[in-house]
């Protein structure tokens, strides 16, 4: 008796994976649409707080993501500058920096959430707020973005920088006018990657921006993002299933759009 041929096993595994994830997507699509229709019908008289749920969550998601991206971008650019300069002079420090960014990008977000909760929410007195959430999130996505930027710069021909400096262009101008524009697709990919993380994140936000479904009035108000909203409805709200699914459908659509943009950027970029 011989083992089943590899081709059969591999094809079987691929079909199983495809079937499982198709089921997942189909489930979200069907139940999500069903939930959206059910909650949109006027006969369901729920409280305003619950009614605004998904849209308030959408607003919270956009506010937190945008603020986190805005605060992360200068930090990530600074880190790219630091990486280019240290690597040019001290390769070992440059390598250590890249390693540190890799580790930071892989740090479990719940741990970053706890840091954000203790530092921003309590010590800085921000409590559960969009601002605390965005700051915590940027602690997570800035290293990720910086890592993507540096990967883009590292992929450029090594002589590029040396030639520019040799022509008498300052290091500052070489960085801003030559290196960064030359790897524009990688910069864009880094930003979109960070945006994908921001919209998908739950663990670090549940500890900092909270699970409130009310309409946030300012950055000082708490507000659940779509992902947190899905968690809260599925976990804590009795009969929250239809609304959890409708929020999940929105979340998946937003996230898939980000992923598709990312994939196109990556395919178009220099490899």
């Amino acid at each position, binding site marked *: 008796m011989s083992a089943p041929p590899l081709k059969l096993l591999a094809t079987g595994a691929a079909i199983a994976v495809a079937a499982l994830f198709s089921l997942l997507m189909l489930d979200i699509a069907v139940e999500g649409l069903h939930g959206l229709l059910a909650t949109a019908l006027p006969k369901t008289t729920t409280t305003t707080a619950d009614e605004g749920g998904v849209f308030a969550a959408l607003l919270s998601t956009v506010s937190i993501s945008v603020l986190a991206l805005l605060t992360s971008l200068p930090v990530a650019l600074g880190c790219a500058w630091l990486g280019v300069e240290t690597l040019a002079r001290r390769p070992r420090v440059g390598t250590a920096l890249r390693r540190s960014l890799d580790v930071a990008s892989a740090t479990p977000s719940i741990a970053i959430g706890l840091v954000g909760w203790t530092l921003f929410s309590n010590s800085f007195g921000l409590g559960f707020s969009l601002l605390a959430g965005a700051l915590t999130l940027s602690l997570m996505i800035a290293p990720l973005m910086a890592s993507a930027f540096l990967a883009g710069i590292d992929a450029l021909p090594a002589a590029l920088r040396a030639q520019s400096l040799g022509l008498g262009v300052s290091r500052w101008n070489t960085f801003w006018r030559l290196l960064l524009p030359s790897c524009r697709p990688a910069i864009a990919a880094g930003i979109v990657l960070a945006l994908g993380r921001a919209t998908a994140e739950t663990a670090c936000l549940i500890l900092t921006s909270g699970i409130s479904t009310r309409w946030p009035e300012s950055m000082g108000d708490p507000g659940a993002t779509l992902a947190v909203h*899905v968690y809260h409805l599925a976990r804590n709200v009795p009969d929250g299933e239809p609304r959890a699914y409708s929020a999940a459908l929105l979340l998946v659509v937003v996230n898939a759009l980000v992923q598709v943009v990312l994939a196109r950027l990556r395919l178009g970029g220099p490899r």
Partner: protein
Amino acid sequence: MPRLASLLLAGLGLLAALAAPAVAMFLLWRAFPLIGDGHLLRLVDDEWFPGEGKFGLLPLVVGTASTAGLALLLAVPIGLLSAVWVRFYAGPRRARLAEMSLGVIAGMPSVVFGLFGTFWIVPALGASLASAALVLAMMVVPSFALFALAALRQVPEGLLRDGQALGLHKSRVIRHLALRTAQPGLIGAATLALARALGEALAVEMVAGNVPNFPDSLLAPVRTLTTTLVQEFEYAHGAHAGALHLVALAVVALASMLVTLAFKLGHGQIHAAPEAA
């Protein structure tokens, strides 16, 4: 002169460059209420009852190890076989479609997997170790398959053709040449998947049952290190807060060790984050 500006930029950059060590130092500092009191030994205990000052980490560690380990046991064979299919059997068009879909699913929010688990897996298996492992396995399969695929793509085409020229059957070429050559990258990929499974909090919390004891069967509820943070952060004070920060530090330390190991093992075959989440 942009001298001041460049200093400012470098200063901003340091924030990201030092994020990882800063997070670890901060957690260590905040764990001091526990460590400083000489309570460290209390952590090596099999009871986690913060209300009674019992901070035994063992059940949580066992919960994390069993859920993540079991998830890996499920995800690695399936993910590896899928990667083999994409690389060697699918043909270019289906391979592209498969890779694109895996990318989209790998970037999906983990809470979506938790939701699916809550309404599809928990009704069958209960809130249990098995449910948590299945949800985690689903979550890590796409990114593991992508990493494995990247490692398989690095195997030199010439080597495979040599094998075929020697008259080896395709499945032998794959098993003895491709998988063997890609082995470091594949192990690196599995290590990254383990790091991701260890660190996941909410998707597990939704389906694991969250009882801090030692699971005696696959259907018993479990509590992990990360889910404890979700459940207790809001009302923890004093030694309890210290214990939670120590738990977070443990998770961070484990994850960063695994990630460093993955990059060492998969030298040149593993690149940071080909997937989005």
